[in-house]
């Protein structure tokens, strides 16, 4: 049984070696996850700041405000998303998705909000990903925001657009509000079709409900403006379909 003994010894030491290597792998993965979580928290916090910056918009300071927002957004990418990319380097994007998904979703929210305010259009996923491709060093695959995080971020965007719309109405920018309304309705309609195909349809369903609430808040606000406008136009004795009444800087002499 000497042979047997030897074999046993061998096995045992190989077991030890194997688990020692498993231990290294697990430690490495956990450390990396921890770093990714931290990077994600930073992205979240700073994207939120960009969103607040956008909400400082008014009729008269649009360029200024958006310029700063874009600068801040660029800083989020250069500083914080870049750090995320660095931490993720060489590892599986999907494996650690849970660790960075909240940050990326908030970033999507901020970036699409900026784009909408600037040009009234939806920032595409391809464009976003193209803008990120420069971050990673060429030897690695660049971080690609996945379609799920993009869509989840978009769902949250509608809440910010609702806030924006209410503010724009107060500022007399009715057409802007109407435009937001249409845009949000379209997003809501399109996302409706995607829900059952998402990886986690359940979360998406919850977001859809919130989104519908947001859409209806904008619609109700537009309704309020409309019925008032319709009442005033006759009162003003004017058939003019324009609506110069709402909005602080809207031409009525206070």
């Amino acid at each position, binding site marked *: 049984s000497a042979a047997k003994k030897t074999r046993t010894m061998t096995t045992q030491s190989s077991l030890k070696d194997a688990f020692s290597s498993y231990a290294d792998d697990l430690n490495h993965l956990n450390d990396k996850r921890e770093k990714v979580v931290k990077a994600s928290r930073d992205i979240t916090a700073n994207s939120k700041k960009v969103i607040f910056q956008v909400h400082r918009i008014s009729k008269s300071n649009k360029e200024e405000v958006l310029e700063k927002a874009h600068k801040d957004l660029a800083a989020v990418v250069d500083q914080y998303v870049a750090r995320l990319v660095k931490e993720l380097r060489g590892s599986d994007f999907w494996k650690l998705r849970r660790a960075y998904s909240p940050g990326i979703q908030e970033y999507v929210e901020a970036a699409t909000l900026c784009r909408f305010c600037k040009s009234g259009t939806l920032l595409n996923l391809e464009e976003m990903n193209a803008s990120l491709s420069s971050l990673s060093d060429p030897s690695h695959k660049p971080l690609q925001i996945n379609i799920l995080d993009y869509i989840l971020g978009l769902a949250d965007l509608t809440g910010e657009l609702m806030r924006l719309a209410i503010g724009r109405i107060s500022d007399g920018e009715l057409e802007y509000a109407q435009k937001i309304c*249409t845009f949000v*309705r*379209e997003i*809501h*309609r399109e996302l*409706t*079709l995607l*829900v*059952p195909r998402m990886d986690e349809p359940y979360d998406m369903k919850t977001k859809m409900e919130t989104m519908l609430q947001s859409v*209806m808040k904008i*619609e*109700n606000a*537009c*309704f309020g403006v*409309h*019925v*008032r406008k*319709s*009442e005033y136009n*006759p009162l003003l004795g004017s058939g003019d379909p324009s609506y110069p009444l709402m909005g602080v800087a809207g031409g009525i002499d206070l």
Partner: protein
Amino acid sequence: LPLEKQFEDFRAQLEDSVVLRERIRAVVLEIESTARLMYSSLLLVYLSRPLPEVLDKSKAHIGTLKDNYSRLADILSECPDQYYRYHGDWRSETQTAVSLLAFTHYLETGNLLLHNEAGERLGLNNSQFGLDLEDYLVGVLFMSNELPRYVVNQVTAGDYDCPRKVLKFLTELNAAFRMLNLRNDFLRKKFDGLKYDLRRVEEVYYDVKIRGLASDEDSTGDQRSKEINDSEVVH
């Protein structure tokens, strides 16, 4: 060995049931998907598309729905008397489908889609594979949840006559539902929600009326009252 023999048998039966369920599931997924497309078509009503176009797009899906249900019926015809055994598997999708049909019908005619009409549209009106009454009722209530949004947007689009009509419709519907003695269940809970839809539409009508925007043909109040009158009073 009776035990072994018996379980041999069970295996076959359970296998059949599993296979059946998989087949049902496949059809139900398609119903859900069709319903989603139909809902998406109906949403165009809020995107300023002309009503005929919206109705066309929406009604284009009814055929598909009917096909889906006909396949479901075929599957269930293999296990007669077990409709209610598997009913839970397509219940909620059917409620949604009914609500979409009823909304389409309302947009087109201003009337409630009746139970047998809904069944017909889905090919569910034979006695073996019919449209469950509670599913129909829940579907109708789902539809009523959509009406306040519809009214608000119609007014914004300049249709000041809409609130009056919808209010009349919802008032009748409410009166009709009050005739039923509902148990403390999902249907009852949904019905309690109808009250809020009605209230919201009353508010919209008020907003329009107080500003003199409502068309003048009526004296809706009286009319509304007259129509409801009988049904409400009976019990």
